């Protein structure tokens, strides 16, 4: 399944690339694309992870960009 998150106040392109990479390493994430310009993180994930993925993503984002707010779409 596909899940999209808006990363509010994401204003560092380098961090977007890092977030994409790190989220991609999470268990159950098949594909991760973070687009700096649209401030969107689009994930292809395993159905079984649907419940816990938001928490995991927030954790990763907090690590790289503490100012960014993750909004689930």
């Amino acid at each position, binding site marked *: 399944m596909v899940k999209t998150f808006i990363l509010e106040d994401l204003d560092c*392109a*380098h961090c977007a690339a*890092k977030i*994409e990479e790190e989220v991609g390493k999470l268990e159950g994430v098949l594909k991760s694309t973070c687009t700096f310009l*649209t401030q969107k993180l689009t994930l292809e994930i395993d159905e079984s992870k649907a419940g816990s993925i938001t928490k995991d993503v927030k954790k990763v984002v907090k690590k*790289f960009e503490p100012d960014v707010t993750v909004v689930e779409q």
Partner: protein
Amino acid sequence: MSKRLKKRLIRIVICLVAFIAAMVADRLIIKEEGGIPYYVMFAVIYIAIGYDVIKKAFTKLIHGKPMDENFLMVIASVGAFFISECDEAVAVMLFYQIGEWFQAYAVGRSRASIKDLMDIRPDYANLITDDGEKTVDPTEVSLGDIILIKPGEKVPLDGVIIDGNTTLDTMALTGESVPREALCGDRIISGCINLTNVVKVKVEKEFGDSTVAKILDLVENATAKKAKTENFITKFARYYTPVVVILALSVLLIPTLIFGGEFLTWLYRALSFLVISCPCALVISIPLGFFGGIGGAGKAGILVKGSSYLEMLADVDTVVMDKTGTLTKGVFDVNSIVAKRADEADRMLELAALAESYSSHPISLSLKKAYESKGELDKNRLGEVSEIAGKGVVAEVDGAKVYVGNAGLMELYEFKADMPEDEGQTICHVATENGYMGYILISDEVKPDAADCIRKLKDNGVNKIVMLTGDRENAAKRVAGQTGITEYYAGLLPGDKVDRVEDIMGGHTGDGKVAFVGDGINDAPVLARADVGIAMGGLGSDAAIEAADVVIMNDEPVKIALAMKIARKTKIIVKENIVFAIGIKVLILIFAALGFASMWAAVFADVGVAFLAILNSMRTLRIAKSDR
């Protein structure tokens, strides 16, 4: 400007003024080097301008992810304090913040201009219910509902006009500035703006399936399909930063430990190294360039489904085109009437149009259309009609028999018909009981800008243009001649087209890509097979929007050349940025190692270059405009 950005600007201005005041105070009043007032003064300004950067650097350090620009800036500026260059420490932080501010501002601007492009989402629909008109969300309207669209409102859903005539502004979808007429019975597309009159529309598609939702979805996800260059830069950045950090360490350690260089001098150089190392210029400006190219193309009515396709489009050197609907209008028109007796031309057309008036064959429609510009068709004059399959019709008009059809029909009824040379047009003979009258030439007209498109494609570096068609050899030859295409294949079945494109791709050498252009209705397999599939007239054709990589929203072939031009220019701008950013950085890195570059130059190499690269990227938004 957002509130957040404004706050940051105010803070920067205050700190800048304080910094200048402190510099003046330092030179004129304190004068004494390294005194306590000197440290305190600059330390206060430093914290005022840099507290958020310091905080970020520390949080990341705690999380074990220290390698980013905040961290680099903190190390560099703290290092400058350490070697008693307090004003430089503040300057580094100040200029870093100014640069960051400009970056945020530029990125915000381009985000906004791209959002403007996508300002086609309808906010509401006026649903007609039993209790009168109700304003609802477009997603709540179901199939078959009747909605009311007033002048100035966006068409919220695809449907058919059941009451009223109006004109539509399709600018946002097609880039076309001339309004389009929409009459009762016409299909209209969501995303257009109703200009003149109130119309009632019967909804034919739910919001999720409507044109506007599809286009929005497509554009919003366009940047997810990243171009090769973008992926390259991401990879590059991954190795680049650690490499520079190691280099910075060796700049510090090798001269001091091995050659006994002065520790502070080399520390300063190593710190400059770190400041330069941030790959931000590349990481921001390259996707921004592609994004701008896609956005600018969108404004011109060209949808590109991803930066990877924009990049491929730039490398296209072979274009394969479908004939009907792409180069020609796909609608038949009466070209000329050749009558035995010149004064009978109008009468011939009248008889032919009447005889064919009950048929919906494209040829019949063209006769009717040609006649209707001259007078009203009175179907009461028509008697019995019998159709001779594959030949034509025999109809009674005003009580007398009229024969309209091809040479076979004339032969069948033993008329001596003229046989003009076959130039690829359809020949429709007309005869009455009194004898043969003449023939009418009908053909699918070449679009007015088709020849222009072919010429512009060649100007843009396309060296092979091939036309494919299911039509007859002679019809293909005529269109090829009129447009300037030298290579064509006629009489192809839909399946043959795929084979042809595969042949062309197989026989193709070098890095150039093969594009196929079709109208998308029965070309879906070919569109998918080519390197880049371009669909024409995407407005209203779902199949085209889904199968193609690039969709030309209206049906002007010249837009294909424009799309290619945008792709090429975008690629050039992206390349400029790569060369410029890497070039300046390497240059300043060398200067820094040799001790020629101050911390100021280092800050310029970081944020200044990023800012300039962003400005350059934003030019991509305007390529389409400059073409007009």
